[in-house]
Structure formats: C-alpha cells, structure tokens
C-alpha cells in the first residue's frame, strides 16, 4: 500500500449504502441490522469468523438472498435485487469463492458468456470476443493468460483472474471478492493484490473478504468487523489495528494479551485407540499427528477448509492415493483406501451431509440402521426379520428416534431424527473410534443436545471420539481436547478448561493471535 492516494471521489459520497440489513433463516438470525457503505476507489474488507454473517451480507448485495429488513441504496436511489442478474445490472458484480467457470470453454468464451459479441444480431463474432476478452485481461494486468486455452487447463490463480475479468465485463461499479486469496500461494496473492490496486485506481468500490489479517491490513481502506450476525465495528481508512480487530471479532470474553497456553498432552495409562503420525496429503493437510485415548472426545477445530475435515475423510479411506504417514487403530497400523477397510479396522463415520452421504432417504429407517450390521441379524444365509426388528427397536429406543414405525422411509423423518438414524447405524457394533464430521449441521437444538448425550455416552463406554464441527461453540461444550487447524496444519492444541471459544478462534487466526500477545 505504497500508494495511499485514492480516487478523487473517495470518502465523499458512497456508491452503495446498505442500512439495517436483517436476514433470518428459520429461527436463526444470520444478519442483524447491518450497515455498510461502499465508496468509489476504496477497498472495504469484511472480517469475521465462520457464521459471523459475512456470506449472508455478500449474498444480499449480490442479489442471491433478499433481506427481511433493511434498505439498499445506489447513490440516493433505493434498490432491491430480486435476482443476481438484477444486482449485476445495477453494477454489482461478485466473484464467489467457488468459481463459476466452464472448464471446457476457452478463456474468451468464459469471460463473455451471456454477453457474446454478435454480428448482424445473430452470429457469434469470435474475433470481437477475443479482442474484448484480451482488453479486459490486459486491464487487469493479466495479458499473459492465453485467451484461447480451455479454462480447465489453467492454474487456479489464473482461472480466478478470468473470473474477475468475467465479472468486470459487465462494467460494474462494485466488485465483491469472496475469499479470493484462500486458495492462492504467496506469489499469487501478490498478483491479486496488484489487480485489486488497479481496480481501486479505476474508481471501483471493492468488497474484499479474507481471513488473513495481514492481507487485510495491506489492502483494505475500510474494515467492517462482524460477529454473530452483527456488525460490531468499523475501521475508517488508516485506523486499522490487528489487536482491536481481533478483540472485536472474538467478543467481550476476549481480553487482549491473554494467550491460551498450549496444553501439555495428557497421556492416559491405556493405549491409544487411534494414533496418527505425520499424516500428509498434498494440497489438503500436512504432517498432522495426534493420538486419541479411549474415553476421550477430541475436537478438530479451525475455520472452515483448513484441512481438518480432509483428515477425517482420509482416516475413513476416502482418499485412495497420495496419503503419507502412519495411522494405527487400537495398535494396529492400517492403510485405509476404502471406507470398508476403515470400518473393518474399527472406525465409525458419521458424515455431515446425511442427505447424500450418511443415509438412504428412500429406504426404511430399519434398513438404514442395519445396513452396516447385516451379519448381526443373519440366521444362516438369510436375514431374520425378527432379529432385525429386535436390534432396530433397541437402537430406536436408545437414541429416542421419533418415527411412526421403523418401516417408514428415512426421508419422512425430521433432520435431527435422520441424523440419529445415521448414528444408530454405527451403534449396532461398538467401534473403538467414532468420527463425527459436523453432525449437528442443520439439526435443531433439541436434537443437538440428544446427539451430544450420545457422543458423551460413547466416550464414557470407552470409545474414542473425533469431533469436527463448523460451529465453534460446540467444541467447549463437548471436547476434552481440541486441535486447531490452520492451513492444513495443527496450529495449536487446547485441553481441559483451556478449550474456550476465544482460545480456539485466536489459534484459528494464529498469526494475529501472536501479534496480539
């Protein structure tokens, strides 16, 4: 940020003003009365933990979601965006985290999709398209990207620039970049920063989302901090402080300078049920080591996408290639390449996406529960309906699964009860290690409490439990010990009373936490 000089109109009149934006999903308030002003030639960063409301705010600006309350103004004119198209027409372009490119089409076709230059109002004009696409890329300082290459062949960083060029082809005044740097290397980030500087100099208002405080400090003029759906603070140009930002992000319970101490690992007398040493998978996670004692609930925390979920997937045999390191379950080394092998070794896996991974919505509750334990209900070669319903009845009662009868399809149950059925599947046979991968996603508070009770019960009966959640508040409620992941590595470990929400968050924003100390 050597060049602090901004566009003449900066900090005079905002291009876009949002006031009192509120959005509820069911009973959950995702965004509470948020205000935001975007000025031309300014980079406005949004900072906050997962679930703080950043995505909701961005989705409202982009026309993906409509606010329940509040108002958007462009200049002095109130506007509403019923669709993303309407937002785009009003000059607001968004580059989402998941790129929306067509891998088989070339760069020019991607950039101008839906806006293809035509000849005679009918025929595509590929030459004009290439010219236009090339000038858009040049404008970004990315003239080196081969305009005729299929996008699928480009490295991610270049594909992202193509996406930005595509957004700019609509000539927006406001450009929203949702975590554009999270998948980039340091050199690639440099290039993106340069692009943002250029756009800023052209008078665009830029909304920039990132978890990296260092980046924000460099690139942002104005910073809004969100926590639990509320905007809790705003830094005007030049006033940003990492420590203040962190304190705002983490809330009242956080006191500056108080660092969670790195707990020494408590080693039980008993042998570990799970021992993971130096587990690495290129582009996913790196040298992850931990042990899990019987009776222990170990949390894998961190911001979303820091590799913790991939570690669980790898343990369960969902990565067939490239896994390095050692995994031992109950003292026996395994190399799981299929879920079946992980199951045979003693792992039980409750996935987050029960609609597509955990359960069979069209099959009966009963069939869902016994699918992994058919040997238990077999008499000779045939399944015994009596043995099956006995087993199912026991588990349905134990987990308090609410269904009219175990013969109804799983899909007819509520989300929480569906998740219980998925858990019940693994209770028929006691596993030494239970892996819960964001099990409470989309379940209500009552079902969540029930699920927690089951997890505690499993631990109490001597199994080890690995627990991952996107809701950070669940770790202190449940875990004996927590590993905090950051960029594919274990950034820190917390145990016992040190497992607190602020401590986890501080380790999640590791760099900043050290700074604040």
């Amino acid at each position: 940020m050597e060049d602090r000089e901004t566009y003449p109109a900066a900090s005079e009149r905002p291009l876009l003003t949002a006031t009192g934006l509120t959005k509820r999903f069911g009973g959950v308030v995702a965004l509470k009365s948020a205000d935001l002003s975007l000025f031309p030639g300014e980079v406005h960063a949004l900072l906050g933990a997962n679930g703080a409301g950043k995505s909701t705010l961005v989705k409202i600006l982009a026309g993906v979601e409509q606010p329940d309350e509040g108002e958007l103004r462009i200049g002095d004119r109130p506007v509403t965006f019923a669709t993303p198209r309407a937002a785009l027409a009003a000059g607001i372009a968004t580059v989402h985290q998941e790129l929306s490119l067509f891998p088989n089409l070339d760069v020019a076709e991607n950039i101008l999709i839906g806006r293809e230059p035509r000849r005679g109002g009918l025929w595509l004009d590929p030459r004009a398209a290439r010219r236009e696409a090339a000038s858009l890329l040049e404008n970004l300082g990315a003239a080196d990207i081969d305009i005729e290459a299929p996008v699928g062949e480009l490295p991610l960083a270049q594909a992202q620039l193509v996406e930005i060029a595509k957004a700019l082809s609509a000539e927006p005044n406001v450009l929203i970049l949702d975590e554009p740097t999270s998948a980039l290397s340091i050199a690639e980030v440099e290039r993106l920063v340069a692009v943002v500087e250029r756009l800023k100099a052209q008078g665009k208002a830029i909304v920039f989302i990132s978890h990296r405080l260092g980046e924000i400090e460099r690139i942002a003029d104005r910073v809004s901090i969100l926590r639990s759906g509320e905007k809790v603070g705003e830094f005007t140009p030049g006033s940003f402080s990492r420590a203040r930002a962190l304190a705002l992000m983490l809330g009242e319970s956080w006191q500056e300078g108080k660092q969670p101490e790195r707990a020494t690992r408590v080693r039980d007398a008993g042998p570990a049920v799970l021992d993971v040493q130096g587990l690495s998978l290129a582009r996913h996670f790196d040298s992850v080591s931990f042990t899990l004692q019987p009776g222990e609930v170990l949390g894998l925390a961190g911001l979303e996408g820091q590799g913790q979920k991939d570690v669980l997937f790898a343990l369960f045999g969902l990565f067939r290639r490239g896994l390095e390191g050692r995994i031992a379950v109950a003292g026996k080394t395994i190399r799981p390449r299929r879920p079946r092998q992980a199951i045979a070794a003693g792992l039980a896996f409750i996935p987050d996406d029960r609609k597509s991974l955990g359960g069979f919505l069209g099959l009966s509750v009963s069939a869902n529960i016994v699918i992994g334990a058919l040997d238990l209900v077999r008499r000779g070669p045939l399944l015994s309906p009596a043995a099956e319903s006995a087993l199912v009845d026991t588990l349905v009662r134990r987990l308090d699964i609410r269904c009219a009868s175990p013969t109804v399809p799983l899909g007819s149950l509520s989300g929480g009860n569906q998740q219980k059925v998925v858990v019940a599947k693994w209770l028929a046979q006691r596993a030494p290690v239970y892996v819960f991968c964001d099990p409470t996603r989309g379940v209500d508070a009552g079902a969540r409490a029930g699920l927690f009770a089951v997890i505690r019960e499993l631990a109490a009966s001597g199994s080890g439990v690995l627990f991952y959640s996107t809701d950070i508040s669940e770790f202190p409620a449940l875990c004996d010990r927590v590993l905090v992941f950051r960029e594919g590595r274990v950034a820190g470990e917390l145990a016992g009373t040190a497992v607190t929400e602020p401590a986890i968050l501080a380790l999640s924003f590791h760099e900043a936490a050290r700074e604040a100390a």
Partner: protein
Amino acid sequence: MSQPAGTAGRERAPRFSLGARFSPRGQQVLLSYLILLVVYGGCIAVSREFLSWGTMRLQLVQATFIGLVAIGETFAILIGQIDLSVPWTITLSAILGTNLAALHGQQWIAFAVVIAIGVAVGLLNTLGVFILRVHSLIWTLGVNLMLQGVALIYTNAAAPTTHVPALARFLALGNVGGMPMAFLVWAFFAALAILALGRLPFGRYVYAIGNRQPAALLSGVRLGRVHALVFILSALGAAFVGLMLSGYSSQAYLGMGNDYLLPPIAAVVIGGTRLSGGDGGYVGSIAGALTVVLLQAMLITLNVSEGARQVIFGAILLALASLFLKRGR
C-alpha cells in the same frame, strides 16, 4: 405423537411378503397387478380364447422368457443401471450352446456355455460400467453389438445345427403335472429373486446402492462386488433364456434374441420399479411380464398388421411407463 417411538408390537411382518419392505410401495405392486387384470379383461373382451387354458398356457411360456430376463433387468435397474446386452447374449448363448453340444454329443456343454457366457458378459459389463464408469446405457449396448459380431463370425465359420439338447427342449416345452415346465422354471427363479431381494444381505446392498451409492460406500458396502453380481445375474438369465428359446423353437438362429431388448424393461417399469433405481422389486415385474405378453397377444388376435401392432404396443408401453414415472415423482 401419542405412541412413543420404538415400542414393540407394531404391524410389521405381513407387508414384507410382498417385497414391499423398503417404502410404502405395496400400492405400487397392487397397481401393477390391477393393470394386469385390466389388460387380461381387455384380452377376454377381444376373444373368448383367452379364457381357455390352452391359450393361457402358451402365454405363460412366452411370459417366462420375458420374466426370466426381467429378473436380471430388475436387479440392474434397482442399482440404477440398465442391461441392454441381453438380445445378443441370448442369441450367442443359444447358437454356441446348441452347436457345441451337438458337436460333442453332450447336453451339459450347452449349460456350461450358458454359465461361461453369463459370467463373461457380466464381468465385461462390470468392467465398463463400474470400473471405467461408462454409462451402462452406452456400455451394455456396445457389448450387445460386440456379441452380435462374435455370433456372426461364429456362424460364418460353423453351420448352425437344428439339433437342440433334449433337456433344453424339455425346459421350454415340457409338461409337469399339467403345468408347462417353462413356467415352473420361472416360478423357481422368481422365488429365488424375491428371496434374494428381501432376505439376503445382497438384496439390501442392491437397494442401498440404487438409493444412494456414496452412502453405500460409506456404509462399507462392496460396490464392485455387488455390481459384478448384478450384471452376471442379468447375463446368466439372458444366456439361460437363450438355451430355453433354442429348445422352444428347436433351433438357434441369428437374431432370435432381438425381441427381448425392450419387453423385459417394460415389464420392470410396469412392475413399479423406479428407473432411477433404489425402489421396486421383482413381485411387480412378474405382473409386468404377464402384462407385456398379454398385450402382444391381444394385438395379434385383433389381426392388426405387424407395423400397426408395433406402433400400438409401443404407444401403450410408453403410456404405462409415463404413468409409473409420474408416480415415482
């Protein structure tokens, strides 16, 4: 909820015998049999002939061929796939089986050929559909084409025989206690199929895969093994029907399996099995096979020309199929 979940003593057993265990689909099966009744009523309205045992006996034998192929097709469709390699599996099995058996003067060779072709074609289909991930619609049709080629090469080199194993003839034309032997064979394999789907772990895996393959993988189901078993079963059924058909017409000839591509699939669909997989069963397919055969017979009795018959038959099948596809959402 007046009654707490999980209490014992609910109605549970009776519906299972229909194979309707996995979702409230007893009605679906009922609908299939209602359609069968309506079509049979139509047949009787067209001709009193359909009241005679002699006519119906003939229809039962015809339905056997379709019904046996429909066993494998039901399994294949339940796991969300389809097997279109049936016609030339039938023909190749019939030609190779009868010829080799005649050449060596040994009946059992024909059965060995059935098993060899069944296993080989089944594994080839598994290779393409499961390992290479080619859509089964494309792959099995390609395999069908290749089998046709093999049959042509073979018949160019060897003269076809009219000498059909006596056992094949007995299976297709025999009579046991007044019942056609073919129908008894069908009843036997139908019972096995229904048992397999309802009471074997294999059957559970079939439904699980068709319902949601990733969830089946995470539940530890051996996906490859189940796919292989299903495609082998389907090819075995077709190869066996080839042998029976050669016994039925006392000869094996090129193209004899051509009428067995769509009718068995139609039988499965009319039987209420969802084409996208995971829901259905063989009980309905039985009604479907009988319905298809009776429809064909009715149109023949009506004395419509071959071309018009095909148009009407096709139209009725599509109407029934769309009826079921709508019901299945």
